[in-house]
Each structure stands twice: as structure tokens, then as C-alpha cells.
């Protein structure tokens, strides 16, 4: 049903240009990976704290506040580079199970991060039970790990 749209996207001028260049696609990929490291660090720093490891002496809310701009900035950066990669090979993505798994996990991860996780990480530490914190931290890591895994596996086909 969606295939004609994916075909039209792939045949667009930007997709054509990226495919026509030897260096462009790999370079955008590399930028995408740098963004991954930034967002990975920012997410894990807070998730580790939620799990009760890492920067334990800092309040969760303080760490989350510091990490927030890097998560949002990282997302914008990853989204921009990711869209460019998608424009270059949308039909391949259409047929890739990994792509759809990644997009589903990404949607869940974003919703989870900006609702449940945000609520827990802006609350006063003492008002949230350690069990809930651990659960939220583990869920966040699991969701983002699935996004990263799916992304890598789009390339294996």
C-alpha cells in the first residue's frame, strides 16, 4: 500500500543526488553514528543513575536536566541525517524488517522518554521508589538498544 510513496521518495532529487555520489552516503552514515554516540551517552548517563549505578551522588533531576539538551539536540541531528539516508534508499527500507522494527521502537522510545521517563526524572528523588526508577531506566535502555540494533541491521540485507 505504501510502496508507491516509498518509490516516489527514492526517486526524488535529494535521493538521486546522494545515490549518485560515492562519498555522500557513507559520510552521512558516519555523522549519524556520531549523533548516536552523543544521544547514547546522554540517555545512558541518566538511565544508569535510575538503575542505581554511575553518578549516584547527583540527584536524578539534576542529571536529567543536564542531559536533556543533548538528547533533544542529538535527536534532531539523528533525524536530519537519518532522513537523508532514508531518501537515498527508501525502497530498500520498505522491504527491510529491521527498518520497521527500528521505526516502531523509535516511536515507542520517543513517547516513553518524553512522557513516563520525563515525569520520573523531573520528580523529587524521594517521591519515586527505587523499583520504579530501575524499571524506567531498564525500559529506556531496552527501547533505545532496539532502535540502535534495528538501525545497524537495515544495512544487512
Amino acid at each position: 500500500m505504501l510502496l508507491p510513496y516509498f518509490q516516489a521518495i527514492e526517486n526524488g532529487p535529494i535521493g538521486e543526488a546522494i545515490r549518485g555520489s560515492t562519498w555522500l552516503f557513507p559520510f552521512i552514515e558516519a555523522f549519524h553514528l556520531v549523533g548516536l554516540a552523543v544521544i547514547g551517552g546522554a540517555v545512558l548517563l541518566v538511565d544508569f543513575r535510575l538503575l542505581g549505578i554511575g553518578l549516584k551522588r547527583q540527584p536524578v533531576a539534576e542529571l536529567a536536566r543536564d542531559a536533556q539538551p543533548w538528547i533533544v539536540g542529538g535527536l534532531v541531528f539523528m533525524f536530519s541525517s537519518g532522513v537523508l539516508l532514508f531518501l537515498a534508499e527508501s525502497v530498500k527500507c520498505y522491504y527491510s524488517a529491521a527498518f520497521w522494527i527500528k521505526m516502531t521502537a523509535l516511536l515507542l522510545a520517543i513517547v516513553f522518554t518524553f512522557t513516563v521517563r520525563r515525569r520520573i526524572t523531573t520528580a523529587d528523588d524521594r517521591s519515586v521508589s527505587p523499583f520504579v526508577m530501575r524499571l524506567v531506566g531498564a525500559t529506556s535502555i531496552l527501547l533505545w538498544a532496539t532502535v540502535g540494533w534495528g538501525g545497524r541491521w537495515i544495512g544487512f540485507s
Partner: protein
Amino acid sequence: MLLHNLMQWMADTEWSVGLHESRYAYSIIESVHVWTLCLFVGFAIFLDLRLLGLTLKRVPISQITTRILPWTKVAFVLMVVSGVLLFFAIPLRTYHNVFFRLKAVLLVLAALNAWVFHNGGIYRRLAEWDTAATTPRAAKLAGAVSLALWIAIIFSGRMIAYNWFDCDKLEPAIVDLIAGCVR
């Protein structure tokens, strides 16, 4: 030539061929390499950004080095193990890959930079600036160099997959030299 032959021998071992031809093993190791990239480079970057005074300003540097650095080290070990396995799956081609060679050099530079920072005078006087939001110039420099090197390492690592300068092509003499092609 000696190393070239060693790589050739490695490529012919049962384990290397098995890894190379496996349906899932190679992809799974790649995934582990990407996951640990988040953990290792992600945490390394945040120490760098703290040294540059760009984030975690209220977190003492010593908290990061005592509570985050151990995780960074664990992740680095995983990164090296998965990286070695990826190399082992395609040894000969990787050994002659220009980007692999560049990455190896950059890794040595990153290690040197980290060693100089952790063993230099600035780190011995950490107690004096541990909680300062604005760090001394030497610390900023170490952070900036590390940040630039890790970004370059990610770039060169990603490029290893591409065969633009492989030895099976006719290349300019300089590329041949850097790649150490055996003709």
C-alpha cells in the same frame, strides 16, 4: 610482507572463514560493536564535554572519573573484543584498508591523549578545580582533542566497510604505499 603473510594465514583459518561466512555471527558482533559505541564513546564524550565546561557543570570531575570511567573501561574492552573479532573475520582486506590504518593511528593518539591527561600535572592538581564549572585551559584542551579524535575514529571506522582504496584496484602510488599493497 611478514604481516601480510600472517594475515593471509589468519584468513585461511577455520575460525576466520566460519565467522566470515556465518549467517548471523558477523552481524551480531557488528551490533555489539555499535551498542558498545554508545556506552564507550558516549561516556567518553560526556567526560570531554564536562572538561570543556559544556555540561554536567555541577558534577565534580572526580565523580565522573571514579563512577563513570570504570564503565567506560568495561565498554572499551567489549569494543576491542568485538572489533578484534570483526578484524579476524576479514583479516587480509582489513589489514590493507586505508581507513583501518588511519583508525589504528588515531586510536594510538587518543590513548596518548588520555594517558597524558590522567598522568599530567593538571590531573594531579584535580582537587583544586574538581568542582569548578570553568575548567583550566589544559583540561579543556585534553577534552577538545579527545572529542575530535573520537569523532575522527567513528568516521574512519565506518569507512572501513567501503572498498574505494582496496588493493584489488589500480591505485595511485601513494595509496598503494599507505595500504601496503602487495602486488
